[in-house]
């Protein structure tokens, strides 16, 4: 006689087997985040900043101005036949700033563009120096290239968070809606199986992949880009578990009523797209206006990303990220409880 497995173990094992026998799923979970980090990492790799393109309106001083600007090296000057052509190039974003020399120097630029403001300073400085300005006090530069402050350092924790969200919500959501469509769920409810066991197994199976998933992304970040892990690895791993729990719960909730894959897909996008944009995956969530900050900071992915960055890049302790961890846990528990309550088994 074979031993009877605990239903929770049997269900978790089943889910794992289903997953590993689905090659596409493996690709999306493991290869996609690595490819994304690779592409973005190379796009933003360490190198001297690109010169800012600027324009010079044609006229007698044009040659002198463009020589002065190209000598400075921080901007790249192009000469336009007249002011109208230069302004056209400015409007279409080909250049950040247009210089016109008519007794006074006139700088055309859009002050809301940071690179335009920078170009204003660089261009003015280059021209004034070329025409003989002297510095009141000499200045020297001490340059810093510290690991942990580069874009890729910012990006890798964000991709980790993004991946925890994506695989949690997609992985669980689709598998449940599929089981509902095929009436496997209905068949299981005709057995003495506990409903909570089924839902828990979905989340537990996630943890098993999580270990691999997190390991792949972190190992890639550390080995290829030298991304630092300054805080405790244990805290980091616990944090990713918490994240998986949270998004697993949200995946259950999103899939708790949907009767079709289309409906589930729509709901998943509704949940995930705002967090892709707001939660500081690719750029800091601090950039959003103050009025929406309470909302942005309350999102589980924002809290998770902030906590991941605090541990990885700043070496913060578990106590320092307790607030963020609490937000993530609260979302997970509330979602799981709500899902269990409103779940449609047929």
């Amino acid at each position: 006689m074979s031993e009877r497995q605990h239903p929770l173990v049997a269900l978790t094992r089943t889910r794992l087997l289903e997953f590993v026998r689905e090659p596409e799923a493996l690709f999306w979970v493991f290869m996609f985040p690595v490819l994304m980090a690779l592409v973005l990492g190379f796009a933003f790799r360490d190198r001297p900043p690109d010169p800012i393109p600027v324009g010079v309106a044609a006229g007698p001083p044009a040659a002198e101005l463009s020589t002065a600007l190209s000598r400075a090296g921080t901007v790249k000057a192009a000469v336009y036949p007249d002011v109208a052509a230069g302004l056209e190039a400015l409007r279409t974003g080909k250049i950040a700033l247009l210089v016109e020399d008519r007794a006074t120097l006139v700088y055309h630029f859009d002050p809301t563009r940071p690179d335009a403001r920078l170009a204003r300073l660089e261009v003015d400085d280059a021209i004034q120096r070329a025409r003989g300005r002297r510095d009141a006090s000499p200045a020297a530069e001490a340059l810093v290239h510290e690991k942990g402050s580069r874009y890729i350092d910012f990006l890798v924790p964000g991709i980790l968070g993004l991946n925890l969200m994506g695989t949690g919500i997609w992985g669980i959501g689709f598998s449940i809606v599929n089981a509902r469509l095929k009436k496997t769920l209905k068949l299981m409810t005709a057995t003495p199986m506990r409903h909570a066991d089924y839902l828990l197994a979905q989340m537990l199976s996630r943890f098993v992949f999580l270990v691999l998933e997190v390991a792949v992304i972190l190992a890639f970040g550390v080995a290829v880009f030298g991304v630092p892990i300054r805080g405790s690895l244990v805290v980091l791993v616990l944090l990713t578990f918490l994240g998986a729990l949270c998004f697993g719960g949200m995946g259950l909730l999103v899939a708790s009523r949907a009767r079709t894959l289309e409906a589930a897909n729509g709901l998943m996008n509704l949940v995930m797209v705002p967090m892709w944009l707001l939660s500081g995956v690719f750029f800091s969530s601090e950039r959003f206006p103050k009025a929406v900050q309470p909302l942005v900071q309350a999102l589980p992915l924002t809290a998770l990303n902030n906590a991941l960055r605090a541990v990885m890049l700043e070496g913060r302790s578990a106590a320092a990220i307790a607030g963020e961890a609490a937000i993530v846990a609260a979302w997970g528990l509330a979602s799981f409880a709500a899902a269990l309550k409103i779940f449609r088994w047929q």
Partner: protein
Amino acid sequence: MSTSAPSAIVCRGLKKHYGDVRAVDGLDLEVRAGECFGLLGPNGAGKTTTIEILEGLTKPDEGDVVVLGRRWGSQERELRERLGVSLQESRLTEKLTVYETLSLFRSFYARGRDPELLLEDLSLEEKRDARVGKLSGGQRQRLAVACALAGDPELLFLDEPTTGLDPQSRLQLWERIAAYKEAGRTVLLTTHYMEEAERLCERVAVVDHGRIIAQGAPADLIAGLGAPHILELATDPAVGADVFKGVRGLRDPRQRDGRWQLAVASLAEAVPALVDALEGAGAKLVSLSTHRATLEDVFIALTGRELRDE
């Protein structure tokens, strides 16, 4: 009828509607412990809704259901430990193997049957490690029944267990269901195959439009027709029903697809008289066939429609 055996299922005044459609419309039913009971009817008659109400998967709008002495609504898991259910449309996970699927279902029950024995029971040993997605229709159905048997149930519900199967697979499943019943267990099945009902079921209920229109042992229902034979004929040119009026022993003429179908008490008496009557009407017999009356004929006699919409 004797009612000494305890009832496995009793339901009274069952009603269920979906929007304007009355799927079940006042249905009473009693299944005795140890019998195989068949719900027989065409597609859309309300069989599936009825069996799913009895399985506790669908809530009736009205009516009372008692299964193995209990009502749905409290301590459902204890009751489910004693039931086996195979649904009509549910598809098992294709990525799992046959054995993995059986182990999973076995894990849901506190007591049950070893998956290895279930494989034997349903002749699936050779497919033990095959993925469910690679099985034939018959093998899948057998696996579905094996899953229903994983808890070694007292009462087995089978919703259209052999629909869409080839004759050989059907026969295999029938043998298995018969063996299960031999062990003293109760089976409730739905089917639209009269042969299945006649072979497997001690009693059947003919369901139409959400109601039971006849109930009893298949042989009794057929005997109730009062004519053990069915005669089918076609003539050239076609004749009207009045031709058959003068022939003794012919009853219930019905026209179907240009052919006449008649109930006959005695072939020996009726056939010569029929041939004479046709000659008298100037019509030639193109074809003539007879068969023993079946549950299908009972259904046609009761509703004027055929059981299968083939």
